[in-house]
């Protein structure tokens, strides 16, 4: 059986969602190719006349766009940005991203749930970026999200899987693909998240701030594939160290 990532009824072979922020447009094509990415995120912003280049010209045509709603501070603004991105030709995928805190850029789960419900009803394939909280994840699932995107660490921090235990709970308890987003700093961390059962990894800063962007994109690709394979293979047992001194518990059984 082929192992596909399914989002909103669409199938993907790659489980690496690449961010396009913070690096030169010239490198996007090489990064996408080295990452083997089939989905790339974009932001919607006031157009800047100084940039004569259009990012859309640098993204290979077979790549699915995942516009985000960054800049939105509440559900209403997120919906507005999603509408603009659809009008811009961004398709029906949207990563809902709502932040009310400009220092830590932590997502507001309550507003994110509201926006998810509205956009899902309008037919968007909604991938909400969220703080890894089980109840919010369930609410997002009920609101019609196509996947859950919990953060691993504060966005842009490259600090790694600091919320590991909570992401694991969401993976275990919610019947949706879980895409670990934000904070992943190294390929080994992406691999670890995939071993845990994450459906995909979204990564931007770790690659954008690497010395060699295309090579780091490739390193992440390999790590994500390795983690996925390990997950599918079923991790082997870990031998406990030493012997246990507990008295036998099952000595009472008679037959």
């Amino acid at each position, binding site marked *: 059986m082929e192992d596909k990532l399914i989002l909103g009824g669409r199938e993907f072979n790659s489980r690496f969602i690449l*961010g396009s922020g913070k690096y030169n*447009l010239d490198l996007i094509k090489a990064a996408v190719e080295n990452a083997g990415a089939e989905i790339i995120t974009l*932001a919607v*912003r006031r157009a800047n006349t100084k940039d004569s280049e*259009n990012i*859309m010209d640098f993204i290979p045509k077979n790549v699915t766009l995942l516009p985000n709603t960054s800049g939105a501070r509440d559900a209403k603004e997120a919906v507005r940005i999603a509408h603009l991105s659809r*009008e811009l030709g961004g398709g029906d995928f949207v990563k809902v991203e709502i932040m009310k805190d400009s220092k830590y850029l932590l997502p507001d789960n309550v507003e994110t749930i509201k926006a998810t419900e509205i956009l899902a009803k309008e037919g968007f394939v909604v991938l909400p970026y969220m703080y890894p909280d089980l109840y919010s994840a369930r609410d997002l699932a009920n609101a019609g999200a196509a996947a859950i995107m919990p953060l691993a660490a504060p966005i*842009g921090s490259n600090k790694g899987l600091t919320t590991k235990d909570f992401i694991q709970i969401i993976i275990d308890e919610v019947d949706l693909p879980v895409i670990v987003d934000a904070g992943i700093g190294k390929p080994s961390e992406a691999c670890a998240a995939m071993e845990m059962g994450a459906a995909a990894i979204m990564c931007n800063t770790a690659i954008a701030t690497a010395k060699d962007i295309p090579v780091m994109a490739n390193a992440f690709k390999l790590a994500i594939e390795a983690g996925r394979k390990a997950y599918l293979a079923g991790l082997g047992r870990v031998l406990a160290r030493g012997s246990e001194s507990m008295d036998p518990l099952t000595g009472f059984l008679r037959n």
Partner: protein
Amino acid sequence: MVKVNGVNMDVDEQIAFDVVSSLGFKENTYVLELNEEILKKDSYKSTILHSGDVLEVVSFMGGG
């Protein structure tokens, strides 16, 4: 006065497309939002801006 991307401009009664083009935006790379309503693409050349309007010119850029 019309507010275009946050800047007040004296372009009252001018056509939206002309204003945006004169600022250097290339056709088909942006979407216009007038007073928080998205303009249909085929109406850019027929929409006339009035004093007090708020026009946003938005496009995609890199983001995570």
